[in-house]
């Protein structure tokens, strides 16, 4: 570990004697734990649409996300820490995205990159478009733009680092024995339209209500 890194880790208010500089840091366990995680966020190699191209640009020469430890794109969800939802989420793709999310190991984060992933964007009214990935997955960082520039993506990822910095090993869900090891979301399926299993009673109630003759609520 380089000197600077240790100095970063050291908590303010604790003086390290000059002869031990670079060899010793007085800090908290959380800080060490988060330092490791925030400095090697591995994104999943998974692009949906236009934003994915800017994601690649952010990895390439000029912007170089490797500076933040985010250059290792993993094609397998099992090895990735963050899912950058880069592009329009369609109904046809939705079951696959949820399955990928469920396959990711904790700790896992979701970044909604661009207008489409955040809320449907210009394609929101489309019949095959899911109006925002947050209808299904918990999102940590939203990045605005259509598409966000590579700088915006880098800024969003730095925001994610800040979020990681604030987490405490005492409270994180993946070490909390009481809860599930990993957050899993019910996988939607493709019927006459996209069916979210969590909303089945609601859908049933509404469709029965709409079927009531003479259906005063049909023009809802």
């Amino acid at each position, binding site marked *: 570990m380089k000197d600077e890194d240790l100095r970063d880790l050291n908590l303010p208010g604790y003086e390290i004697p000059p002869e031990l500089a670079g060899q010793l840091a007085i800090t908290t366990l959380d800080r060490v734990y988060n330092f490791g995680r925030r400095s090697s966020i591995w994104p999943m190699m*998974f692009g949906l649409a236009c934003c994915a191209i800017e994601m690649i640009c952010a990895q390439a*020469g000029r912007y170089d996300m490797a500076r933040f430890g985010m250059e290792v794109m993993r094609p397998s969800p099992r090895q990735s820490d963050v899912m950058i939802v880069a592009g329009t989420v369609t109904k*046809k*793709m939705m079951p696959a995205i949820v399955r*990928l999310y469920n396959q990711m190991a904790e700790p896992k984060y979701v970044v909604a990159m661009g207008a489409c992933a955040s809320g449907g964007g210009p394609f929101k*009214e*489309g019949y095959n478009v899911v*109006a925002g990935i947050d209808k299904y997955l918990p999102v940590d960082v939203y990045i605005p733009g259509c598409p966000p520039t590579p700088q915006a993506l880098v800024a969003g990822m730095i925001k994610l680092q800040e979020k990681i910095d604030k987490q405490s090993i005492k409270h994180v869900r993946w070490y909390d024995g009481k809860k599930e090891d990993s957050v899993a979301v019910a996988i939607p399926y493709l019927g*006459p339209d996209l069916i979210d299993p969590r909303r089945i009673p*609601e859908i049933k109630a509404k469709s029965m209500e709409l079927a009531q003759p003479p259906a005063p609520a049909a023009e809802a």
Partner: protein
Amino acid sequence: MATPATETLDLAVKFPGAVRADTRPGFSGWVVAPEKLLEFAAFVRDELGYDYLVNLCGVDNLPEGQMEVVYNVYKTTGGPGLIFKTQAARVDPIEIPSLVSIWPGAELQEREAWDMYGIRFSDHPDLRRILMWEGFAGFPLRKDWKEAFHDEEIKPYKSRWPDGKHTYAEKRSAYGDNINFEPGFDPEKWVPTDPEEALYAALKKYKSEEKDGIKTDHIIVNMGPQHPSTHGVFRAVVILDGETVLSLKPVMGYLHRNHEKIGERNTFLHNMPYTDRLDYFNSMTNNWGYSMAVEKLMGIQVAERAEYIRVIMSELSRIQNHMILIGMLLNDLGAYFTPALYAFEERELILDIFEAVSGSRMMCNYFRFGGVVRDIDETSLRKIKDLVFDRLPRKIEEFDRLLTENEIIVSRLKGQAILTSEDAIAYSMSGPMLRAAGVPYDIRRADPYGVYDRFDFDVAVRHNCDMMDRYLIRLDEMHQSVRILEQAVRQLPEGPISSQKPSYQIKVPAGEAYGRVEGPKGELGFYVVSNGKANPWRYHVRTPSFVNLTALEKMCVGTKIADFVAILGSIDIVLGELDR
């Protein structure tokens, strides 16, 4: 210019009672009775020489109670095309004979028309839904089909303009989300049907066999939709014997963003930024295709300076596209990201110019009907000159030196995945894929648009029909693009950048137009029908990525699974325009 010309031969006399000229104002071509369609198509192909089916799409003529299918055919020797239509009553089942036996390139396009309009093509070898999933309720592009977030028929919506009392789409929808079900639909009692069933049924059945006392099985492999080699969310299902591909079906629609449905609600100008998002590498050429179609409808000329700016922008776009393609193809061959990083370096420089002139790196939204939206400033022009006269030729040479004679590239690409000239034409391949198969067909020459007829350049063509040629043709085309750019930059005239006054709402007379440009990936066509109102009645995008995939199975069968990745890379697909 490129308006489909009426054949001198009167086809109505040749097919009495079955063919008549399309006399609607603003329309051209022929209307063929469905019974005679196959005979007519064979005649057009064999006797008149229109061997190249470029575009096929459905149109819902709701007021007339008709469903229409439009065919645009061209001659691969060049020249204007022929347009013909066939109409059927808008009563299910709508049956129209399939033209796959005449032009195999119709296969995917007919499946799309079935998916979107419910037009059943009889004798189609594999008529399944293509963009939506099997089991989806309704045919979404029909004019009487409404999406869950439906607001009004056309934009600008009265709820938003001029008073701006908009409501949340979620509140408008019955289910509070972008979903819609039949009244009385019970998700608990509904028996899930497997949307994949028809897909696996369409693949050649796999079987086990006993060879030399060893029992072997064919296996099915699903590649995608999340797979690093598919350049997005494309999926292919392959049946393998060992490593050899026996059968393959492309599965798409994972990025189907409903461009056409949204486009038919938008005003004409509204669609311009949407075209950026089709092939998001080349928003400049996409803009051109669409503005060309609308300019044809309006019958307006483009300002002289704007014509040159258009050429400059789309040729720069072509260069960066081909560079990325080569980088990504090499990625697929295993040169993990090194060539791609070289490519992205140049791409950034070209994107800088796009950003300076249009305001956005990727989504340029730069063209307007009759011109472009902003002029090129001096700094950008100097940057363009630096690139064109100095940097780009060197860098293209560098690519050539770095890659072309690499042993791995040669052994992976040479002689692989042959697609003959005849097949390439029959499968409606376009762009570099067609020219690498030995057909010197380039719309910039064959059916010139803009000011391309003023430039001196060669149509790149290669005759070995293999993957190596598909790689080399991209290098050739970059050289030619630099040549065009050199001339365009030198000749760039002064003057206004648009022949029209800037306006949000334009008047487009009723009629139809098919605008086609030579995009970097192939022929990009926009078929636009106007009924004289503020919105296009039909807005169809014929994209090269989509149509070029028709021949994917043909090229892949018999090769190894690892080559499939390279073949897909050499076709150069981009999901935004593949699924639209």
